[in-house]
């Protein structure tokens, strides 16, 4: 409603202004013409005298039989001397002024009609009266035309505006109501529900798209939590059982002090392994929740990578493996220094573990306009394309046995940390071996 009022007022304002400008100009033009002519005639009288003026006026009157231009010259007592008016208009008597009056003329059919006119009166030296004017029919017609047009314009605009406004607000309200309906449905428990997107790419579609993205995120987090609980239950149950069984069986064997001590040490080791798995699961969940993004700082990723390489070099050397590094200097990204180090550490752990003796591990850290790219490649057996997606999941193993050391969470944590940093992770064939490509987006 308010918009309507505002709209209406501004339209009126614009049209009013236009009217004022056009109508005014027409009126002004006419007056100027009359004024100029009046002065010209007065000048003529001063220079050449009465007789000459009468002559000029008679001439001009002759040229204006139909009173397009109006002239009248009279004595101080208003006795006619020259001109094309039959009498000095009563209105024109008195002080020199501008008058609007009616004149009698004949139209094209010979009929007598009254037409509007405008004139100026002037008192010449020696008190002679001069009247100069113009017939205003045409001009008034034009003014009426303009006024008409403007008024119709106003009316039409108002009608269209009202109609359009009504339609628009109905449209807007219906889109908003659609979102409201969707929200209520979700609150009532339909977690799969999403906001409608009409494909028109307008603001409402964008709003819907954003809301849907938020809902996807919530669903992702919820399923992440469910996964964590499942994983904890699933993958910790066996080792804890093992632990318990070992203790129980040992008791049955009525062990001596030495056996007891050994079993205790073994139990501590087993417990440590369980704790490690437990912590890793929590770390992954934490990384995946995205909460840590709030505390991101500028990290010198060059330094972190160099530290990681330095930490793992001796480990690689034990298997006669070498690190081939190409690390650009002073590259920085927004992130969590500790987690990035863990990410690289996990990659190196895997690379060293799966690459045979005397293999090479290549490390590449570079920057281009898209951001920082980190590539860690080994010369081991690699991961077949069809297993790559699974490899990034928790507890995934290439060999389905659980006897290999490590918790199977290495790549899952790598994936989680990558996602946390808004980076992308790609597993590729290094021919031979695995090439892990991480692309960190450009700093904002």
């Amino acid at each position, binding site marked *: 409603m308010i918009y309507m009022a505002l709209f209406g007022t501004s339209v009126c304002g614009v049209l009013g202004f236009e009217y004022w400008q056009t109508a005014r100009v027409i009126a002004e033009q006419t007056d100027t013409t009359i004024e100029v002519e009046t002065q010209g005639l007065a000048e003529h009288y001063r220079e050449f005298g009465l007789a000459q003026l009468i002559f000029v006026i008679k001439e001009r009157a002759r040229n204006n039989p139909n009173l397009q231009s109006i002239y009248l010259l009279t004595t101080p007592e208003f006795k006619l001397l020259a001109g094309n008016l039959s009498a000095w208009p009563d209105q024109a008597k008195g002080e020199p002024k501008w008058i609007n009056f009616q004149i009698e003329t004949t139209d094209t059919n010979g009929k007598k009609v009254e037409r509007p006119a405008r004139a100026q009166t002037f008192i010449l030296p020696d008190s002679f009266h001069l009247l100069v004017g113009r017939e205003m029919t045409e001009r008034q017609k034009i003014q009426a035309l303009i006024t008409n047009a403007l008024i119709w314009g106003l009316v039409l605009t108002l009608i269209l505006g009202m109609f359009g406004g009504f339609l628009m607000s109905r449209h807007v309200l219906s889109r908003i109501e659609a979102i409201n309906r969707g929200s209520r449905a979700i609150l009532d428990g339909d977690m799969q529900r999403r906001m409608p997107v009409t494909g028109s790419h307008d603001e409402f579609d964008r709003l819907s798209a954003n809301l849907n993205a938020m809902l996807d995120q919530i669903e992702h987090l919820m399923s992440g939590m469910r996964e964590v609980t499942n994983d904890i239950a699933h993958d910790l149950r066996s080792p804890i059982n093992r632990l318990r069984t070992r203790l129980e069986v040992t008791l049955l064997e009525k062990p001596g002090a030495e056996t007891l001590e050994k079993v205790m040490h073994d139990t501590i080791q087993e417990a440590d392994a369980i704790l490690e798995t437990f912590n890793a699961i929590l770390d992954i969940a934490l990384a995946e929740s995205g909460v840590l993004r709030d*505390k991101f700082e500028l990290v010198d990723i060059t330094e972190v990578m160099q530290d990681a390489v330095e930490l793992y070099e001796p*480990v690689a050397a034990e298997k006669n493996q070498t690190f081939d590094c190409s690390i650009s200097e002073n590259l920085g990204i927004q992130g969590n220094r500790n987690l990035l180090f863990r990410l690289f550490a996990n990659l190196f752990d895997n690379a060293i573990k799966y690459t045979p003796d005397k293999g090479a591990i290549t490390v590449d850290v570079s920057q281009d306009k898209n951001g920082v790219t980190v590539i860690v490649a080994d010369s081991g057996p690699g991961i077949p394309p069809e297993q790559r997606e699974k490899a990034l999941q928790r507890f995934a193993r290439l060999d389905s046995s659980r006897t290999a050391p490590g918790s199977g969470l290495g790549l899952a944590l790598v994936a989680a940390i990558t996602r946390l940093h808004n980076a992308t992770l790609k597993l590729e064939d290094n021919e031979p071996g695995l090439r892990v490509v991480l692309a960190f987006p450009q700093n904002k």
Partner: protein
Amino acid sequence: MRVLVIEDDEEAAAYMAKGLKEQGFVVDLATTGPDGLALATAETYDLLIVDRMLPGMDGLVIVEALRKSDNQTPVLFLSALGQVDDRVKGLQAGGDDYLTKPYAFSELLARIEALLRRGKGVSEQTTFKVADLELDLLKRSVTRGGQDIDLQPREFKLLEYLMRHSGQVVTRTMLLEGVWDYHFDPKTNVIDVHISRLRQKIDKDFNPPLLQTVRGAGYSLREPT
């Protein structure tokens, strides 16, 4: 050495107390925040172990209060809250170290020893000596039995850390933090390999072996008993 443990889980507290007593500590227990604060203020301790999640009170508050009243007793925070943020908060509140649950008791012990040693102003030392192994920080030199030993920068840092904590148990986590400045529990044997290399240089050709492995806990640089 007197230690005050402020922990509301009575069983965990009892086990901790028992373990610490085995190591020769005198241990007092408080199971609520206010009790703990009262005890800490009234008595003198060499170390406080404070759980953050106490009934109705965050352990941080106790430590802040103590620091405000000029109590500089070393504090080790013990907490199930393990995020980076929490660790930073703990240290900012005046804590000296932060251990997240679940933890290995050996880890706890090692860190306690480190904290107690730290309090004695050893940090200004520039030369360290264990048996005939000597390290000079200023000259960046390491000798054993008079013989010069050439170490890589990181190996030097590693030895320096071990010497600062000579006689104590140093866990892998502590080494990763103190020598590499990264915080997490390194799995596999990554630290072991570095230790092994260091051993090659400082122990292999010498007697007695000083860099010892403490099973289930970590390492220790000391003269064997």
